[in-house]
């Protein structure tokens, strides 16, 4: 039986395309220092570290080495540290690793850190293209954006989703990001403006796409006994999981559905005893790197029927005043330090459960969901955070 685990500390950073005033370890330090201050814990109180990044966006093949001391002095205090890297789900997997380490009973207080300097790469797409195998697929450049665009062309073809529906996702997330001091892109965007931005990968325009961001996140997971000593507002892990899909993109051509995510959601909802996700979940932090994905995420997570994602958003149900606000943070479409983005989703969900999300707080959150996708849309992670002890 896994032990009860709570998230007790959240550390976010300022995010931007370039943070020329700091080195990579200083960026990581900023996140970890904020997480320690949040909990009043000292580096000595951390039993183990899990560290996530997706190499080589930062131009380093082992950033955990340079960053080891910024992970609560892990290096000089000779702490155990494990590196996690699963593409875009890296941050989500890092959260899972933190949770598993405590749930297993092997460690009581675990620091989960993810940091990334996507802004240090001149052309992030060049790194993303190296995710594809070199014999059959690499010359076609199917890194993240082209797959997302294919999701969009398919959703438009099979369900009649429009460019306006996509623009509406961007607009809502930008509106939310205005409330989030940790967001990278913070400006008001209208549907007309979004539709006028230049075409990147049909039908995705610049406004439909995430930026390249430098940023980091640090979370502290604790066992039941420790968590209740550390804080009066723990965010309990009520359910969690990860799923993968086969390698070849051409083996599953139904891009208008995100069935791997739907399968994972069914598994995680079952273990968390969630029967009607749309009614029971109070806020969701999903990984929307490209506008179309939030529509697919609504559908796969059971917030609406297949093909109805655009309508759900247009109804206002997922806005800050709606019955299920989605991404009060502005999501990945406004801030994308890739390997950290999944961990930020978990941190944002935890802040909502703790009631500490400040200007982006949704009232009375009891249950929050955090999601990440990665590996050319094949991998997903989910975590359900609860105010009540499970």
């Amino acid at each position: 039986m896994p032990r009860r685990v709570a998230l007790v500390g959240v550390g976010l950073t300022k995010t931007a395309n370039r943070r020329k005033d700091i080195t990579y370890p200083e960026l990581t330090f900023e996140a970890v220092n904020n997480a320690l201050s949040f909990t009043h814990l000292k580096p000595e109180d951390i039993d183990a570290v899990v560290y996530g990044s997706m190499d080589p966006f930062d131009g380093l093949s082992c950033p955990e080495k340079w960053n080891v001391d910024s992970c609560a002095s892990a290096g000089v205090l000779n702490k155990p540290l494990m590196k996690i890297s699963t593409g875009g789900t890296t941050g989500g997997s890092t959260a899972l690793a933190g949770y598993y380490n405590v749930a297993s009973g092997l460690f009581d207080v675990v620091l989960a850190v993810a940091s990334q300097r996507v802004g240090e790469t001149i052309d992030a797409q060049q790194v993303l293209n190296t995710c594809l195998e070199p014999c059959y697929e690499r010359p076609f450049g199917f890194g993240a954006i082209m797959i997302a665009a294919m999701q969009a062309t398919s959703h438009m073809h099979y369900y009649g989703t429009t460019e306006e529906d996509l623009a509406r996702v961007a607009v809502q997330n930008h509106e939310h990001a205005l409330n989030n001091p940790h967001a990278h892109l913070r400006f008001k965007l209208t549907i007309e403006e979004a539709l006028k931005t230049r075409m990147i990968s049909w039908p995705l325009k610049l406004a439909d796409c995430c930026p390249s961001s430098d940023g980091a996140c640090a979370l502290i997971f604790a066992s039941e006994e420790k968590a209740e000593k550390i804080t009066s507002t723990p965010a309990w892990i009520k359910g969690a999981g990860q799923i993968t899909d086969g390698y070849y993109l051409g083996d599953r051509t139904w891009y208008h559905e995100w069935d791997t995510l739907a399968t994972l959601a069914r598994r995680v909802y079952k273990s968390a005893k969630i029967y009607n996700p749309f009614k029971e979940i109070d806020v969701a932090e999903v990984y929307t790197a490209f506008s179309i994905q939030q529509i697919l995420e609504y559908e796969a997570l059971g917030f609406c029927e297949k093909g109805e994602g655009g309508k759900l958003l247009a109804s206002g149900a997922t806005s800050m005043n709606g019955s299920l606000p989605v991404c009060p943070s502005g999501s990945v479409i406004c801030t994308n330090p890739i390997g950290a983005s999944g961990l930020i989703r978990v941190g944002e969900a935890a802040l909502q459960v703790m009631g500490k999300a400040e200007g982006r707080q949704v009232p009375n959150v009891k249950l929050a969901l955090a999601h990440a996708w990665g590996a050319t849309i094949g991998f997903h992670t989910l975590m359900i955070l609860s105010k009540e002890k499970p």
Partner: protein
Amino acid sequence: MNTEELIEVQERWNIPYRHSAGRFASRFLIALRDEKKVYGVRCPRCKRVLVPPRPFCERCFVQCTEWVGVSDKGTLEGFTISYQAYVGLPTPPYASGLIKLDGADTALMHFVGGVDLSDPQKAKKAVKIGMRVEAVWKEERLGHILDIEHFRPVQK
């Protein structure tokens, strides 16, 4: 001392690699070069014809040994059109997608050409899911996936 000045250290990675294509991709690529023909493998258990060919069926976890020729015509199952330039990729605009060749059960990733893509609003009517496409072969072939230049709409 000017404390406002910040230094950026410039760096560039240029690391050569040699990737082993293995027996299966080698045979596939050589057939593109020498026969202008596309081959897949049939899974002995689920009987699916897998293109591109691979050493084992991922669903059944058994080795594939039977080679099957498939058509160089097929159906476009998914696509996008790129208007942004990226290092190492073609000059935009270009369309890329997944093509299920006649006789295959899985789709091959490739370019879609022979269509004017300059205006996205016109291009979206010219490139459609479900459209029939055929391979345009290069004259000079090197044993590479781009020995097929692209797939173009089937000429009626």
